[in-house]
């Protein structure tokens, strides 16, 4: 292999794929990055078998070839080089990559490219299931959902985000057993039949990161054996394994009617929850919402957000709200409230509750595309 490319392009490509490089692995080749010549460009790829990232760098190819080398070492060396042409070369069958830029030169011991796992490309899957979606919509959707996925692997499907393609709608849902986030978004074209896939939450976060400021539509494909998801984002291809299993039927968990419904300013509510959370820290993160409706119908009421820690003290904040339904009290984990209030974009939010032991709902007051369900905490002698 004999290739020449610009330092900054190579640096960016290595950074892009670095998130897919395995850090602790029994398989040394997974800590490597695959460099290969590909139709006049240099292809850079990494995978940890859960996700894979492939990207391309403009290059002049003097001799075709491929090789894998330690991703971290190559990145570190390239990052310190000046922004000038860099020559990458190796002499098959030797597996040493020579990196040269001006008077700086390194020889990095690598591993044969044949040992590197095959990362499917989206073009090869053109026959299978494939959709297009707006990148910024998808990024926002992921951000509003992924944090609700379980962080432990005791129930694998809950460590993933459900991606449901149905009609012209993409639905993302995640639940960790205590809360559920559901977001709907539009596909550019309808799909012929419904398809459910479960993508690891970590992979979803990576995909959102790769999307970045990208504005061109993203193509998403599912391999025919339904084991992998592929996404083409500009010059980068992202691959994730899919989680096998059936996601719980989230629709019947979502309460549709509320005994008490409040509408209040998101920022004021968020600040009140944050203040309470400092006191809640020492008390299982319990934050109490006490809903005081207005004295008369159509009079605004208040929501009292309070927390108590036996040894530290307590706090109360009052937030104005329009309230329908009777006075009520419910307690939530402060973190869960803070998480959802942090991802809602609109200025007004709606909270719906059906008593202290039933699921509560948080959503935007003006948009119906996002619903967040939180189970309450029960306190004391309930």
């Amino acid at each position, binding site marked *: 292999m004999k290739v020449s490319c610009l330092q900054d392009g190579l640096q960016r490509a290595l950074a892009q794929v670095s998130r897919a490089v395995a850090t602790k692995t029994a398989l040394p080749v997974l800590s490597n990055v695959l460099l290969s010549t590909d139709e006049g460009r240099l292809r850079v790829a990494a995978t940890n078998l859960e996700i894979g990232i492939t990207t391309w760098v403009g290059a002049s190819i003097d001799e075709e070839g491929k090789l894998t080398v330690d991703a971290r070492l190559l990145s570190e060396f390239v990052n310190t080089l000046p922004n000038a042409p860099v020559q990458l070369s190796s002499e098959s069958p030797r597996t040493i990559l020579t990196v040269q830029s001006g008077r700086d030169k390194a020889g990095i011991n690598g591993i044969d490219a044949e040992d590197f796992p095959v990362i499917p490309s989206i073009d090869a899957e053109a026959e299978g299931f494939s959709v297009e979606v707006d990148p910024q919509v998808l990024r926002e959707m992921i951000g509003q959902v992924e944090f609700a996925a379980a962080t432990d692997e005791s129930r694998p499907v809950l460590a993933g985000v459900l991606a449901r393609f149905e009609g012209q709608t993409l639905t993302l849902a995640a639940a960790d057993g205590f809360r559920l986030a559901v977001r709907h978004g539009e596909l550019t074209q309808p799909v012929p039949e419904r398809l459910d896939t479960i993508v690891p939450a970590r992979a979803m976060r990576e995909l959102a990161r790769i999307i970045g400021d990208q504005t061109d539509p993203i193509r998403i494909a599912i391999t025919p054996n339904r084991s992998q998801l592929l996404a083409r984002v500009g010059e980068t291809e992202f691959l994730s394994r899919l989680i096998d299993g059936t996601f719980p039927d989230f629709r019947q968990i979502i309460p549709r009617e509320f005994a008490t419904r409040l509408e209040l300013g998101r920022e004021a509510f968020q600040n009140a929850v944050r203040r309470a959370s400092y006191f809640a820290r*020492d*008390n299982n993160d319990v934050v109490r919402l006490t809903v005081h409706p207005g004295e008369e119908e159509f009079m605004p009421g208040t929501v009292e957000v309070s927390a108590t820690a036996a040894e530290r003290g307590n706090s109360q904040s009052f937030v104005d709200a329009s309230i329908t339904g009777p006075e009520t009290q419910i307690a939530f984990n402060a973190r869960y409230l803070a998480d959802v209030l942090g991802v809602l974009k609109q200025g007004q939010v709606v909270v719906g509750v059906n008593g202290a032991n039933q699921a509560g709902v948080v959503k935007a007051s003006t948009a119906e595309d996002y619903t967040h369900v939180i189970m309450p905490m029960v*306190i004391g002698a309930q």
Partner: protein
Amino acid sequence: MATVRTILHLDLDAFFCAVEERRDPSLSGRPFAVGGRPDGRGVVASCSYAARRLGVHSAMPMAAAVRLCPTLLIVRTDFAAYRAAAADVMARAQRITPVIERLSIDEAFLDTTAVPGDGEELAARLQATIRDELALPCSIGVAANRLVAKIATEVAKTRTKTDGYPNAVLAVPPGTEAHFLAPLPVSTLWGVGPKTADRLAALGIRTVGVLARWPEEDLGRRFGRHGATLARHARGIDDREVTAAPRVPRSVSTETTFPRDVADGEALRSTIRAQSSHVARDLRRAGLAASTVRIKLRWSDFTTITRQVTLSSPTDRDAAIRAAAESLLLASWPFGRPVRLIGVGVDGLREPARQLALPEGRPPLDPTREHAAREAVDRLRGRFGEDTIRWGRP
């Protein structure tokens, strides 16, 4: 001018004995003690006034008590019965005022400032109610603050000349606190232990009256911040409120000294299981959950170890505490090693709070039901004794 407060200090007379006597009237007037057996390592938890006259006092080893008083009748401690009786008493006190601060199983402060009527009359009425409805004797001190009310109770008990329960009431009218305290020994005051009493005696201060006249600055120099408190208390001043909210305990524990060292794993486990249930019940009574469970083991050579584990979420449930205590025992007891004392305790107490889970299609679980079951068990034990109902073993 601030309102003059009315504080009642209620103290049940020889409480455990009174409960036993109520159950078995033949004990009346006889020397008896409640506590452990004399052939083991039992101590006197409480003793009748007849026994007290013979020199028996609480916390004394039972064997020593028997030596002093060979005819001493020994009654086994029945905490469940005492707790139930104390709850009955507090319920009567609640009828007078909700502002009650319990100090221990048989002692409480009542703030009756807002209650119409003279403090001494209220005290007499409460005493009569407890006697008539519960057949239990008590003494009550009445004053404008906690300190003087408590001392009034003590003084009332010693002043009463009777062979039986004192059943005393003593009121110290507002404004006469200093005068009332003046002739009493300084050790009557809170915070004056033997050491402080000795240091005061070295200055020639033996009575509260002398202490009250001593220059406060000098007390401050000699005793630091404690000096200022001494000076105020000596004048009968105490601003602390009676707080109805139960004081949040920092830990709950129970331990058992075996009559003979135990080397049988099954016996140790069964003790620890009973202790775990006991601790869990105390937690529920206090409305708290614990985040740490510990066990204590004392070997026959008196060396003592404690081992603890932090739970993933705070609990007030028997099963969770039992499982933690049992696994600690398993990890820290070398098989066959004789154990003199074993105990279970919990720390990191906080309001119990449990995160409910999403229903996931099943009908939502009712969290009140499990709690109701535990409540029922607690009530059964409170009423019929610890052994009424036990956890089955899988």
